[in-house]
């Protein structure tokens, strides 16, 4: 019996439909052919350009801030709280009010003017009358170069001394200093004897200086000149015509010893225009917390161990990048930056979730080994437990963004003809903005005034799938960072 033709045709169709042809995909060979037959245009570098511009922008901004901070011009203190007590006169130099009008103007200009003016006025004053000489001494106190915060504070305080010490009228001056005494002699003896090296031998002169408006500034100025360690002053004895043991009872010494408490004793604090005198360091004292703010820059590199659901281990990847940050306070700081990362990992086929109808869904995918290269942008908040210590500990938490640039996978799967593997490369960019929880803790060790190095173990936990395969890629590793810290001076 012959089989009808229709049966042969039907069976042949069924066989053609259901049989499995041998052979394995050879995409690499076909890709080579396509590169010849259908060459691709040169890959656009827009992504690279974006990150390049971003890096340049960050560098320029950081440099600008650094330059501004580093070469900051002194801020003119326009207001300064001083004590105003009942019956106290204005601060416009009581000494100047005691001078003739011509000299008074010079004194005022000397206490408020520029260095050039000071020099001229000093010369004029030194060649004038005794009173003029006294004014000249006062002017010299302002012509001194200000070299330290403390001296400037003293200088500033000395100029406001009349506010703190009610000045008795000239008639009430001690008899030791007669009203009609030679002012030049008094001033010269004051400027000479207020030298604390000799003050035990010449206490009367110091007492005079305390009651003389002209010499208040002179005392401080001469002390500043000689760089006397003010806080090491020995107590003086009243019985032997020396300053009292409790120096706080002596306004002049109080000013010299500790200018700050004078303000603390204020009953009424009023802002007074400071005649335009620059007090950059004094303002620093006023804004002391500003020293805690700083700009942070660092280079980081480290090892990366990635895994997908902890099923397989893999070789270590790496990351290298730039970090920038801002320290808000001694404990808190914020960090960001950019790093180039290569992650290596191996995953199970069931953990790989490409788009629907992708060819891997038509084969029995066993495992995938691969790696990816990406740009990583963290945004972290950091808390330092013991700021200022040479070795500090910190914890960080934040979110990171992945910008995957290349994925290379080696698929291991089974076909009807046996196991097979295919290498696949994807150069498309997959962006995952703030999709990674970034946790880290570490140790920071200072190795210089501004330089420190850090060791920072980290964990990056995915909040969603990443890459073409939508995989849950967790990363653990350790980063080594060299950091430069530039305090912000205000």
């Amino acid at each position, binding site marked *: *019996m*012959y*089989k009808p*033709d229709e*049966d*042969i*045709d039907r*069976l*042949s*169709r*069924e*066989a*053609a439909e*259901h*049989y*499995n*042809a*041998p*052979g394995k*995909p*050879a*995409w690499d*060979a*076909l*890709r080579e*052919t*396509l590169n010849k*037959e*259908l060459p*691709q*245009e040169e890959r656009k570098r827009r992504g690279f350009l974006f990150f390049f511009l971003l890096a340049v922008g960050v560098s320029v901004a950081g440099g600008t801030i650094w330059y501004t901070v580093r070469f900051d011009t002194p801020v003119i203190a326009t207001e300064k709280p001083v004590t105003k007590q009942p019956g106290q006169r204005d601060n416009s130099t009581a000494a100047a009010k005691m001078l003739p009008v011509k000299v008074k103007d010079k004194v005022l200009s000397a206490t408020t003017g520029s260095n050039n003016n000071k020099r001229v006025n000093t010369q004029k004053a030194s060649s004038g009358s005794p009173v003029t000489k006294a004014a000249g001494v006062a002017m010299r106190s302002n012509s001194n170069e200000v070299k330290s915060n403390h001296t400037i504070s003293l200088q500033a305080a000395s100029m406001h001394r009349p506010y703190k010490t009610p000045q008795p009228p000239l008639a009430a001056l001690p008899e030791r200093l007669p009203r009609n005494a030679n002012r030049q002699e008094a001033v010269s003896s004051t400027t000479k004897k207020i030298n604390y090296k000799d003050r035990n031998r010449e206490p009367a002169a110091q007492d005079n200086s305390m009651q003389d408006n002209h010499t208040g500034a002179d005392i401080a100025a001469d002390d500043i000149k000689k760089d006397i360690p003010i806080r090491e002053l020995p107590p003086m004895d009243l019985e032997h015509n020396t300053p009292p043991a409790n120096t706080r009872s002596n306004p002049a010494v109080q000013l010299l010893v500790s200018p700050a408490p004078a303000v603390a004793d204020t009953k009424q604090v009023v802002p007074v225009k400071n005649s335009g005198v620059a007090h950059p360091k004094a303002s620093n004292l006023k804004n002391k917390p500003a020293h805690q703010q700083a700009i942070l820059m660092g280079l980081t590199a480290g090892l990366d161990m990635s895994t997908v659901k902890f099923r397989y281990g893999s070789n270590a990847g790496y990351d290298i990048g730039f970090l920038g940050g801002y320290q808000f306070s001694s404990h808190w700081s914020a960090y960001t930056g950019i790093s180039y990362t290569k992650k290596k990992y191996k995953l199970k086929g069931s953990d790989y979730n490409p*788009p*629907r*109808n*992708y*060819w*891997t869904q*038509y084969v029995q995918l066993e495992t995938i080994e691969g790696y990816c290269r990406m740009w990583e942008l963290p945004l972290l908040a950091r808390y330092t437990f013991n700021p200022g210590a040479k070795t500090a500990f910190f914890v960080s938490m934040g979110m990171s963004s992945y910008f995957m640039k290349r994925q290379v996978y080696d698929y291991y799967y089974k076909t009807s003809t046996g196991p097979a593997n*295919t290498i*696949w*490369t*994807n*150069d*498309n960019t997959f962006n995952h903005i703030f999709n990674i929880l970034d946790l880290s803790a570490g140790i920071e060790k200072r190795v210089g005034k501004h330089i420190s190095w850090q060791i920072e173990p980290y964990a990056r936990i995915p909040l969603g799938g990443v890459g073409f395969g939508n995989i849950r890629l967790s990363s653990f590793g350790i980063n080594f960072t060299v950091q430069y810290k530039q305090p912000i001076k205000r």
Partner: protein
Amino acid sequence: MGDEAVQILKLVDGCCKNDRNSQGALYHWLYGYAMKICYRYTNHQHEAEELTSESFVKLFKNMHLFDAGRQLNTEALFKAWFKRIIINTCIDHLRKHHSMVNGHVHNTDTESVADMQETAIDKLSYEEIIEAIKQLTPVYRTVFNLFAIEGFSHEEIATQLHISVGASKSNLSKARHNLRKIISHQTQYNTYVQTR
């Protein structure tokens, strides 16, 4: 339009832009489908693989000609279009490498086929049937594939192969005859192996 259609159209769009990743994905998706067809038209596996690759190159070169239109079954439409490309590639290959000329048909099997057992072909597996088809001469195999499996008419076959309709019918008849003979031998061999 379903998700599958969207995915296919995305791949097609990527291939039109000469995107290697889309081409790679499409290649892996349709490799088995193409290989099945090419394997039936050739004697050797490596020849089938070459035809498959050549078909894909043609596909990627002419991808812009594919128009899904408003068809509901985009996958079937695309596969049918690709199948036509594969068959044309196989026929071109046969023209180049085999002595099939217009209107002339090799007829090497002239002996009559012996009686076959009615159930002989039913006992063969799909792979054995395909192997039997592959043992036909290139011309018989091509005509049989086109008519019995692909579903072309004799007029279409005649047009594609540049032969007459009568030659197509004659080649098909002889192809079936030879196929029965090959299957009979195969069945007898299988029966012999099983009885031992």
